[in-house]
């Protein structure tokens, strides 16, 4: 239904889409997820040419929309779009918004368009507000009306561009419910969203976008349960990282503590958690790693916090010979560590650069 081939979109100084390739079949419901600024919305807007791609090709039903003389406005009629900011026509009431396309673009009679429009408004639970103007509606109501407007054109494909991002949390549910109902009807849909649970429930496939490409794609289960790639894993588990490369010969504890404190503050961790984190770092470095490492060895500390389940993990990766175990440290230091950590794991099969790994799982 939609083929995206080597799609590239570059702005001056930034290239959100480097090389995007995808085949989308009829009936697919595809959620596009990924960190901000990775070109999810840009991809969607390229599909209906609201953004002109820099290079590459997009075929809709075998017809190129990127070709020079493509009848873009005709192809767009097959493809509805729902916007983050709703974009209802402010000078018309809701039913007129819904009737406009059918009457002026599809040549339907006003009566037929009205009847169909009211039917659509009923299906999104908005028929009682048919004569209201957009500025009289709540965000959720506006978005439902906008979906009805999109449906009035009988589209084969619907593009949802972060449909719930501008909504009050209390209104997200009503809009998602409408989109869920649509997904069950077999429409082809592409949804850019930050609602992970929703993406998981509703989609047939998930695109994880990063680095200007579709970084990983698969079924919701594959992406959310068994992500194959590191960045995907970090994203779906909502991992936040603090990474520090240290010089074993001279560790600047003041800087390390400062960075840790900032990291904790940014993520809203409690003061105690931050203090425990600093303790764990200090004791492990002092008591375990630094005595056995030489100045030429490499040492990298990664603190990982999962916003999804609240787990906090500290990972030391280093070169040189493996250091000892926590139990071998002096009793005071190992006491402190066992107080603040849940478990400690060791691994000697890391990367070639950093073969040895110690993982501290912090207490919650």
């Amino acid at each position: 239904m939609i083929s995206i081939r080597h799609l590239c979109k570059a702005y001056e100084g930034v290239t959100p889409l480097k090389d995007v390739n995808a085949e989308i079949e009829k009936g697919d419901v595809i959620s596009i997820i990924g960190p901000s600024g990775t070109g999810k919305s840009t991809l969607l807007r390229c599909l209906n040419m609201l953004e002109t791609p820099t290079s590459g090709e997009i075929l809709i039903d075998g017809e190129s929309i990127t070709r020079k003389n493509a009848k873009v406005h005709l192809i767009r009629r097959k493809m509805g779009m729902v916007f983050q900011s709703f974009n209802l026509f402010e000078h018309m009431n809701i039913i007129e918004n819904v009737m406009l396309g059918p009457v002026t673009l599809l040549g339907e009679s006003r009566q037929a368009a009205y009847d169909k429009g009211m039917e659509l408004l009923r299906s999104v639970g908005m028929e009682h507000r048919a004569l209201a103007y957009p500025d009289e509606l709540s965000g959720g109501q506006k978005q439902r009306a906008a979906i009805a407007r999109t449906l009035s054109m009988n589209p084969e494909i619907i593009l949802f561009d972060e449909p719930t991002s501008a909504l009050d949390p209390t209104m997200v549910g009503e809009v998602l419910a409408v989109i869920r109902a649509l997904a069950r009807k077999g429409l082809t849909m592409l949804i850019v969203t930050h609602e992970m649970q929703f993406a998981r429930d509703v989609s047939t496939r998930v695109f994880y976008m990063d680095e200007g490409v579709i970084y990983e794609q698969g079924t919701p289960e594959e992406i959310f349960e068994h992500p194959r790639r590191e960045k995907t894993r970090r994203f779906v588990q909502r991992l936040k990282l603090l990474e520090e490369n240290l010089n074993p010969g001279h560790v600047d504890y003041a800087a390390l503590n400062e960075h840790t404190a900032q990291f904790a503050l940014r993520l809203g961790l409690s003061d105690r958690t931050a203090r425990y984190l600093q303790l764990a770092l200090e004791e492990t470095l002092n008591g375990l790693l630094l005595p056995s490492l030489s100045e030429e060895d490499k040492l990298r500390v990664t603190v990982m916090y999962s916003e999804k389940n609240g787990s906090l993990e500290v990972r030391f990766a280093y070169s040189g010979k493996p250091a000892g175990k926590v139990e071998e440290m002096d009793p005071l230091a190992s006491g402190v560590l066992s107080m603040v950590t849940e478990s400690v794991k060791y691994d000697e099969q890391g990367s070639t650069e950093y073969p040895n790994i110690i993982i501290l799982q912090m207490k919650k």
Partner: protein
Amino acid sequence: MICDKWPKTVVRIACCLMTLLLLSSVMLPGSARGDEEHFFTSIEEFYAPHIRLGVQTGTSYDVFCSEKFPLSDITYFTSVPDMMLQLKNGSLDGFTTSEVTAREMIGTTDGITYLPEKLDELAICMALPKDDDGLKLQAQLNEFLTRAKDNGTLDAVTEAWLTNDTEHQVTDYQALEAVNGTIRLGTESAYAPYAYIRNGCIVGIDIDLMIRFCRETGYGLEVIDMSFDALIPSLGTRSDIIANGITYSDERAEKVLFSVPYSTEKTVMLVRCPMEKPDFFTSLKDSFVSTFIRENRWQLLLQGLWTTMVISLLSGIFGTLLGFGICLLRRRKNKICTAVTTAYIRLLQGTPIVVLLLILYYVVFTGPSVTGLTVAVAAFTMNFAAYVSEMMRTGIDAVPAGQMEAALAMGYTRRDAFFRIVMPQAALHFLPVYKGEVVSLLKSTSVVGYITVQDLTKMSDIIRSRTYDALFPLITTAVIYFAAAALLGYLVSRIEIRLKPDRVHRCVKGVKML
């Protein structure tokens, strides 16, 4: 809803009219002067310091007065009637004019006279452009004038106009047959008895003589009414001969060709004299009659209003269209388009409309085929377009980009999306400002008199020049402008009401609702 609104508007207009009338009735007694008034009786008194003299710009009295009365304070006016008004209400002590004019004036208005001393004697001539055509015409004209002087025609004509002997006056210049072409005569119709408006027609000694001349030589005659200071610059481009009681001077002779004199002008000093004060209502009535009824002067106001409305409406419509075009050009992301349109807008916004009018009339469109009315419409169109395009641009920019995107995503072409979705919303943003701009366009057309167009203001000037009375012509003009502005504002409001979402009657047109 509209029906409810009308009476309110009517009441509002009525209230304003009442206020204006009240104001004027307060002002009228005010125009009467204090009790201890001094009346000048001899020219010797004018040699004293700080005597207030009036001088019309562009006349030879300027140099004359400053040389003859070096201690006086001279104020400059653009027309004789203005000086007359100032003299009557005591702001001037006197002004010099020709005896013929002075006689005409004291015949039509009370409370003024002229001092018996003849201050100067000047030859009055017609003037022609300094070129081959001018030389040829000058020869014919001189021959005619010399003969007229010899056989007494000249004296008879002058006498007929000074004594208002209508039987011996010749006025129908439209009836002339243009066998050898048409002569364009430039004159200012505020200079009785040489040239002035009577019953809506321009008449006077100058016109009379020219008709006789044209009849003999087989020319047609077109009379172009312009302000006195525009007469000499107009020679050769907009007029072939100018005649307006113009006095000979060496300085002028450097620029134009003069005919032989057809009259001499004895310069006299016009001053106030004691008069019987009529009671308030009689003077009001007299003033009313002389402003509106006599010589069917109300027709002049109607003609003027028509001209004003034609200029306002045409330049309003053309200006809006042109402004829209400029706005569209400006929105294109093309450097040349942006540069050109921005320059246009800055230039037009930074030029006074009067200056633009004069440039267009005297510099750009100098050909005879372009009338003052056309130039006025062109100038106001250009000016209005500059403002309208900026207004529209801000209006369009105020519509969120998402509106255009939503329309495009539905499958509208860019043009359809613009006209169906963006423009109606932009219009709601800029129409309130636009309404004010239309009204100020109407008001600013009052300067077209500068380029010989006889609009409402010019017509009221012409009436003032005959009645030497400021009250009724000015108040009436103000009231008419006010009413016309209200009408234009109302028309724009109608568009606004049509576009505005109707939140009162919620309905969908053309649909049977459930």
